[in-house]
């Protein structure tokens, strides 16, 4: 097998077949890994607790803040009485 710099090695037919088979197994292994990670993620997320509003996301919930804010007391009521005469 001769090889010049910059050119791929010349493989005979048997070597090429063996390489093809190996590549196929490698592809299957990678595919299997992706599927396993995907399945694991789905199962783990399905088992996890949902957000307080029953939604999927805990962070940045799209909600109307004005509705969820509690009513504030009026200004004159909110001032605590300080000191005394």
């Amino acid at each position: 097998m001769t090889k010049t710099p910059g050119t791929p090695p010349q493989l005979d037919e048997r070597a090429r077949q063996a390489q093809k088979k190996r590549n196929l197994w490698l592809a299957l292994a990678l595919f299997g890994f992706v599927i396993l990670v995907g399945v694991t993620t789905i199962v783990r997320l399905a088992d996890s607790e949902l957000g307080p509003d029953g939604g999927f996301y805990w962070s940045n919930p799209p909600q109307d803040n004005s509705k969820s804010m509690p009513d504030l007391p009026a200004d004159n009521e909110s001032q605590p009485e300080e000191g005394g005469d």
Partner: protein
Amino acid sequence: MSHVDTADMTSDAPRYATAGDYVQLMKPRIMMLVVFTGLAGLVSAVGVTGVSVNPLMAAIATLAIALGSGAAGAINMWYDADIDAIMKRTSTRPIPSGAVPREEAIALGLVMSGVSVLLMWLASNAVAAALLALSIAYYGWFYTMLLKRRTPQNIVIGGAAGAFPPVIGWAVVTGSAPLDAWLLFVIIFFWTPPHFWALSLLAHGEYKKANVPMLPVTHGAKTTRNQILAYSLLLAPLALAPVLTGLAGIIYAAAAAVLGLVFVKLAVDVWRSDAGAVPVQPEGAKAAKRLFAFSILYLFLLFAALILEHGFGAYFAMPGI
């Protein structure tokens, strides 16, 4: 330490690697025992603690244990390619036979290490993943690179690597490793020396040729036979320890007692024989072979009893415990 170039190991006819060669790199027979003991730890943890685990996650965690074992095996084959080429028993392995280049073996080992630990973490928890990573490093680095070629105690200390799986299996369920899990660890730890030394009595000439300081090479066959008997006498009662903590019930107790007696009997046979003598004595070799073969069956049946008790509702506590 020098490693011979794999090009020197190849025969004249080129051999092209098949998928089977890469499977062989992962030491599938060891992998089976590792998976089985890991599964026993997992099933026992469910039975003892009552914690349920998603069956699919348990299956993926078990697969991660198998891949971790394979990764450690590939790293071991990469590092030991030079001595594998010298010994007849291992000369047909993928690297010395020229089917797989050493670089591919270490690449496979490292990638699979990462994949197995990641999968374990995803499917279970950080404790199980850390224990798996530790066991891979223990076998692939500590035993293979530091112990094996340096000390005749290589098998004793290195045996811990093969003892981790039930602890990992337990941690998959509970996220911790309590005393019961470590009892299973101890059983495999004390099982490994008589198991492996029985084999090394048969192949001590090969180890000597490869300059590996196995006990029969450094201290002789008689010392090895004494050590086999000593470890067997320790193993038989230790295997009953899970009964005392309530981890195991009547079926396991009966199995451990009977199997332990047979193990000790076969160890006594080896001790009384001239196994490991030069030139090879057929009777001694037969005794060592019997012990080696039975030791595999012993561990399999012991852990099968645990799976039967906790996985199939056959647990009946020992009266008075």
